[in-house]
């Protein structure tokens, strides 16, 4: 049996690609399974999906523990999710990244790291989606399913796409399938997945502040981040009250900006602000301090 694990962020198509791969294998006479693992369901949040293929019917119904291959659609997941956990000896991790394989391998010790710049190859093919390139690439490395089966599976799965969009994705699939992958490996211990243990001294699913897991929800943002014009801020701290991720930073009870490691870009602070001091700006925009469009002025309200 072949077992593949997919890591992506909600909206990047990890679940869809897990299914296209299964559909392609099905077209080659294999028995298959494809399923996602659900955590927080929203765009930007980490998503895991699985594909299985075997020569005989697959009856087991549990997560893949020891994948033969792991595909990482978003390199920003590397610090957030133990992508190499459980990898079978002889297996590989295929990462979509512009970064070199050897520098990726530093961060993923103990496993065979393959890398492809899926986003760049997708753009060359005329598309936006690295996921298709990675799908082609993982099949290329495994030697199956055939490119033609992948393309047909893609067309069948996305039956409502225009012929032009299908053609672009076929090209991207082929680019991935034939791509020369950069490869590296560094010795080291593999990752382990730690499970939280509920506290027995606090029955009733009580979570203390210091025990709360603090996932880096900053990775969930998809292109926009909040920024503040401090001269418009009246320091009512409603943004602080409403922010679900405690990502509003204060100093001496005065609002100063955002913790972008944890701000997930939900825009609740924008809605909550009575003076429209907060707005969403492009991720790359240079800001002052911790997210200020304008610096704090001497003797202003925050003094």
């Amino acid at each position, binding site marked *: 049996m072949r077992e593949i694990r997919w890591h992506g962020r909600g909206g990047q198509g990890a679940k869809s690609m897990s*299914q296209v791969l*299964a*559909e392609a294998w*099905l*077209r*080659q*006479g294999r*028995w*298959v*399974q*494809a*399923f*996602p693992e*659900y955590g927080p369901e929203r765009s930007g949040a980490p998503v895991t999906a699985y594909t299985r293929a075997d020569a005989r019917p*697959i*009856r*087991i*119904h*549990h*997560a893949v*523990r020891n994948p033969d291959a792991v595909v990482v659609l978003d390199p920003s997941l590397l610090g957030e999710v133990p992508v190499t956990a459980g990898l079978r000896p002889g297996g590989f991790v295929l990462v979509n990244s512009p970064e070199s394989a050897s520098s990726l391998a530093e961060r993923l010790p103990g496993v065979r790291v393959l890398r492809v710049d899926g986003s760049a190859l997708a753009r060359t093919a005329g598309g936006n989606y690295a996921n298709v390139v990675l799908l082609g690439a993982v099949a290329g490395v495994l030697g199956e399913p055939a490119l*033609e*089966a992948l393309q*047909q599976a893609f067309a*069948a799965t996305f039956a409502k796409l225009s012929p032009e969009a299908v053609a672009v994705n076929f090209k991207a699939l082929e680019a991935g399938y034939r791509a020369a992958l950069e490869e590296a490996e560094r010795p080291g211990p593999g990752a382990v997945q730690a*499970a939280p*243990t509920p506290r027995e001294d606090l029955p009733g*699913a009580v979570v203390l502040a210091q025990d709360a897991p603090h996932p880096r929800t900053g990775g969930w943002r998809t292109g926009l981040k909040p920024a503040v014009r401090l001269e418009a801020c009246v320091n009512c701290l409603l943004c602080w009250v409403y922010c679900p991720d405690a990502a509003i930073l204060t100093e001496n009870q005065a609002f100063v900006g955002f913790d972008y490691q944890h701000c997930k870009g939900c825009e609740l602070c924008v809605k909550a602000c009575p003076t429209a001091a907060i707005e969403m700006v492009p991720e790359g925009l240079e800001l002052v301090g911790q997210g200020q469009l304008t610096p704090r002025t001497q003797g202003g309200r925050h003094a």
Partner: protein
Amino acid sequence: MLEAPALSLLTGGEAVAVAVRQIDPDVFPVYPITPQTPIIQSFAQMVADGQARTEIINVESEHSAMSAAAAAALAGARTLTATSSQGLALMVEVVYIAASLRAPVVMAVGNRALSGPINIHADHSDAMLARDTGWVQLFAENAQEAYDLMLLAPRLAEHPEVRLPVMVGLDGFTITHSAEPVALLGDAKVQAWVGEYRHPYPLLDTANPVTVGPFAMPDSYFELRYQLQEALERVPGVLEALCRGYARLSGREYAAFESYRLEDAERALVVMGSAAGTAKEAIDRLREQGEKVGLLKLRLFRPFPAQALREALAHVPHVAVLDRALSLGSFPPLYAEVCAALYGSPTRLQSYAGGLGGREIYTEDLMRLFGELAELPAGPTRYVGLRR
């Protein structure tokens, strides 16, 4: 050009939606809840695309969904719906009433843990909440079974000797969201199989008015409840006959339960739902090592086929029952049923519980279970996969 496969890659939820489209019910009142959502999402798309003539009623809660479903079925409309977990909990008042009104509603249940703490993943605690309602309860192992049982369900529900609502359970996410190859029947075949729905005294037959849901005094309540009990007792016989017909139609054999490598088994496991597939894998691996282990996968939980189950397990010295739900403060529900069915038999029983709230049940977990089964002294429920 490669040939398109004869099997369709569908999630369990999609497979149920295809079955519903092919049945083409008159009415489908529904309120969305995870992990039932892929069923209603796919089916609503099919209706919007003109592939079914069903009237989907978007109601304001599951309580309303079941109220509308029971009423529609009694009005003379073939009625299906779907829910999960808290949705079933909210509708449960009317779930009882639907059975007592003898409304042959069919409901797919994406089996999910009950709150709390709130959890969206698979177990059977929602179905167990409804085990005493008078509904027939079936459990599917995989997407194929979910599809097939959905096609069997209306025939069973509407059968004149039964006339009871039927629930088809498929494990949340594990089956509802997992894509697997499914063999589908042609639309015309399904239409011919389910036939026309005819209620003998529909509410909309204004020339022959009837009252349903009257008050029952102490002089009649007991007899009416007993009628339900009798109707449920007729289910296994009707189901068996229907399964024969369905086998002719589809080539796939169904029954109240499936025995897997049970003939010469010295140790056996009783389980419902998706864990049964994992159990088959564990059993094959142990058989390769010469271990005589087997499985009894129960599909029909209500009515509980006690006599048949007793006969099927009569020769097995050690039987484990794995529940995916607890009955807090007592033995888990499936175990209690099997125990009652095997009362007085020399078989040694052991209760296990696991897979709660989507906790994985791995092949190795079940191999370990079989490994210890013969050696265990009689004792309380053991927990598979619990950390402590």
